[in-house]
């Protein structure tokens, strides 16, 4: 099959994408490498006529940052916690949606709503849900969530306010990310379920296979290409988490008195940009790039064993 003609045809099919990617993706990627290895590279200093030496100072600075370990820890944990949960939930919802008839359209539309809801609005909702207003005994509101868990006799938790713990913050951010990730995943998985050959289900029905068994033995393998896609891309996206934390905490990336407590590597990149400190920003990006590359390679290896096309 790999004849010369096929070779040339494939490149023809790929050419529009490749030309554009070359200019707008590969070149910036290479430029990121360049900036990362020029000590103290600053975009404005270039304009001012300064030159920079080749070296690995930027990487040293990034890793030497007093909070770098914290950023790394947050980045990795956010990803590791949210990707499996949101993917599993999305799969359950997609399958559940697929198996009902009445109200299916209504539910489907509702699950799409977060997509057309502005991110500022979502940030506002989270504020209302988790923010406590008040000091000490003088409490104006504990937030909606605390009011709800209060019904079950659980004492209020300081989720996001000054003095809140890293664990509590983590819980809120993870909830936000999972929530935010659902519509896209549901959409993709639902699309995937449509591509599944219906005969398999009919066969399972005749065999009176149990529902759980059908799910794990038929549904999951059949949507495995889409699952692999969702998992791999959401790992990549998850490592780049930033906007959800801004949505909850604002630019301080943490509760008032301990800002940066929830900051991530991409958050650090954003911290560097207002100073046009592209050297450090690029170095941090490349560190992240290396991490994602390894994780994606592992993901790819696993999926090449498990995915059924």
């Amino acid at each position, binding site marked *: 099959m790999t004849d010369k003609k*096929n*070779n040339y045809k*494939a*490149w023809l*099919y*790929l050419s*529009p*994408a490749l030309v*554009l*990617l070359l*200019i*707008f*993706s*590969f070149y*910036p*990627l290479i*430029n*990121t490498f360049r*900036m990362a290895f020029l000590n103290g590279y600053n975009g404005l200093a270039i304009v001012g006529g300064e030159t920079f030496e080749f070296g690995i100072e930027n990487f040293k600075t990034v890793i030497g940052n007093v909070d770098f370990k914290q950023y790394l820890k947050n980045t990795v944990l956010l990803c590791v916690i949210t990707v499996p949960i949101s993917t599993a939930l999305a799969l359950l*919802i997609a399958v*559940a949606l*697929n*198996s*009902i008839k009445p109200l299916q359209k209504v539910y489907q539309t509702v*699950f799409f*709503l*977060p*997509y*057309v*809801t*502005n991110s*500022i*609005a979502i940030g*506002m*909702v989270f*504020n*209302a849900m988790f923010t406590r207003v008040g000091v000490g005994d003088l409490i*104006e*509101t504990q937030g909606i969530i605390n009011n709800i868990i209060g019904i079950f006799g659980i004492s209020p938790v300081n989720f996001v306010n000054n003095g809140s713990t890293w664990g509590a913050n983590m819980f809120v951010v993870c909830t936000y990310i999972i929530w935010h990730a*659902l519509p*896209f995943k549901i*959409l*993709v998985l*639902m*699309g*995937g379920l*449509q*591509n599944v050959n*219906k005969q398999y*289900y009919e066969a399972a029905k005749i065999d009176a296979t149990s529902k759980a068994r059908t799910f794990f033995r038929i549904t999951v393998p059949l949507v495995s*290409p889409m699952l692999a896609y969702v998992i791999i*891309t959401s790992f*990549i996206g998850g*490592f*780049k988490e*930033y906007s959800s934390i801004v949505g909850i905490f604002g630019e301080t990336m943490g509760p008032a008195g301990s800002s940066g407590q929830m900051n991530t590597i991409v958050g650090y*990149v954003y911290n560097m940009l207002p100073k046009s400190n592209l050297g450090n920003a*690029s170095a941090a990006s*490349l560190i992240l790039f290396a991490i994602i*590359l390894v994780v994606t390679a592992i993901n790819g290896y696993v999926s090449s064993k498990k995915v059924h096309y």
Partner: protein
Amino acid sequence: MADRKEFVIKDIDVAASMRNQKTANIIRLTVIYIFLTLMAVMMIFPFYWMIISSLKTMEEYRLNVPTLWPKKIVFENFVMAFEKAKLLDLFLHTLYVGAVSTVLSLVVTVLSAFAFARLNFKGKGIVFGALMATMMVPGELYTITNYLTVSGRLPFLEESISWLDITNTFAVLIVPMLVSVYYIYLLRQTFMQIPNELYLAAKVDGTSDFKYLWKVMLPLSVSTIITITILKMMGSWNAYIWPRLVANDDAHKLITNGLRGASFVTEAGDTNFPAQMAAVFIVSIPLFLVFVFLRKYIMRGVSRSGIKG
């Protein structure tokens, strides 16, 4: 005698098992509906919040304890959104950019996904890996480099090349955003699910690759194509950072820039969130309608084969 007994037992078994199955089905459906309803409430809440916020006065929005229903419903925010932004112009620009980029992007995506899924050529793994790699660096660094590129500021040159400066055109809003590796990857996954035998059969029949793609693969992948269409349209509709950077003049301004820009700053310099929410709500309506319209194509497979799961 023995035969008869056996028959009776079997008869009772069938009836009982049918009853059991019916009960199990009801329980299962109840669980599914409860699950979906719970998730739906969570999904709808921010959207609800967006709407009620748009109906609040700035004063009420600033209350320490947010109200779940506006004390006083005002429509002035909507009036303001219409008055302060030249909505019609913004709509037309966005519609144009959205439509052109969606169509072109689909073409590029389909061609590339086909090459990756169906054709064998030298270097396929490397090219695909390279594509994936571009997803792994935070986008902000791309933005800066790409901005320099579209401004005609090429590497190794001391001066910008003015005729390469394509800022403040529609092209600059469309072209750099045309290729999305996410979508290529997604469609590749779908294409790969289509049995290879079909392709080989077509080859034997002497069907050209293009015809096969057009007649066989695309119809079988409608769900994914629609998903990509929706996602791409949303992308153009919600694009913010890039358009603001490269085309902020009145002749090319897009809706999010017009609406999220400073039109909604109170005189004291705070963002006027209620007015912004009103604007965002107006903007999300067309997206919502597009989704409702296209939704049936995603689920078409289901209704056609009448699978109830």
